[in-house]
């Protein structure tokens, strides 16, 4: 049984990444927030299985399943959110620092990430900002580690191409 402090620890450690992951698929912050809520309700009710190798991979796997179920429901009801509108994008931006160039770079990274196909951007964010290994990513999405690695490389190459100009200006 999961204790309340343990549930809070999981939330503090992973909620931002899980929310970002859910947004990548459902393309709507309100829907992603509801799914994040559902995910923690599920964990609160069931706890974490003893047999899991990585709690991070387990949580992202749960999020992946919830996102896929939500997408199926959206398709059924013909309510697919094709793009995240500008006013819904407030939570998914990166933290601002004082440097306007860095802020501009961060905004362009977010825009470039959103332009990637979900199967690439989701892997890029798990790898870059959530610290999952390719083995864990493979477990989350039910693909091979090689596929995860190649999708990551595609994503990075596309980001590099799109952000080349601004990165050249700000790189140390």
């Amino acid at each position, binding site marked *: 049984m999961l*204790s*309340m402090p343990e549930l809070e620890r999981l939330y503090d450690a992973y909620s931002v990444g899980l929310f970002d992951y859910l947004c990548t698929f459902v393309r709507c912050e309100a829907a992603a927030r509801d799914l994040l*809520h559902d995910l923690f*309700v599920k*964990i*609160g*009710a069931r706890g974490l299985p003893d047999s899991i190798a990585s709690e991070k991979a387990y949580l992202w796997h749960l999020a992946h399943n919830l996102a896929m179920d939500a997408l199926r429901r959206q398709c059924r009801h013909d309510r697919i959110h094709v793009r995240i509108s500008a006013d819904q994008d407030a939570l*998914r931006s990166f*933290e601002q620092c004082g440097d306007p160039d860095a802020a501009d770079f961060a905004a362009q990274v977010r825009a470039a990430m959103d332009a990637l196909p979900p199967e690439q951007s989701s892997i890029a964010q798990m790898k870059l900002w959530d610290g999952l290994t390719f083995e864990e990513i493979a477990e989350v999405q039910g693909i091979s580690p090689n596929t995860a690695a190649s999708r990551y490389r595609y994503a990075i190459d596309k980001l590099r191409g799109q952000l080349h100009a601004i990165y050249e200006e700000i790189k140390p």
Partner: protein
Amino acid sequence: MNDDFEQHLQSLHRRPLPAEWKAIIMRTARPSAPSLRPPRWLAWGMAAAWCVVGLLHVLTPSLPSTPVVTAPAPPINSDAWAQQQQLFASLMSDNPSPP
């Protein structure tokens, strides 16, 4: 091996979620009280045991049944019955009624 570009991307930090989300989610996601239902492995074990019991019951040949020996009912003799009734009636008529 991460190159400079990837490291630069990694240095970006995502915005934290609104604090009120945590309060709302924690309120509803509170771990539930322990359930009275048996653990799943125990339920499956009991189900399997009952299946084995049922299977054994079906497959085991039944023992030959021993017939219950009962005393045959005496044949009803209507003549004897009539004599008995007559005797009883005569005895009742001979006996004086109690005071």
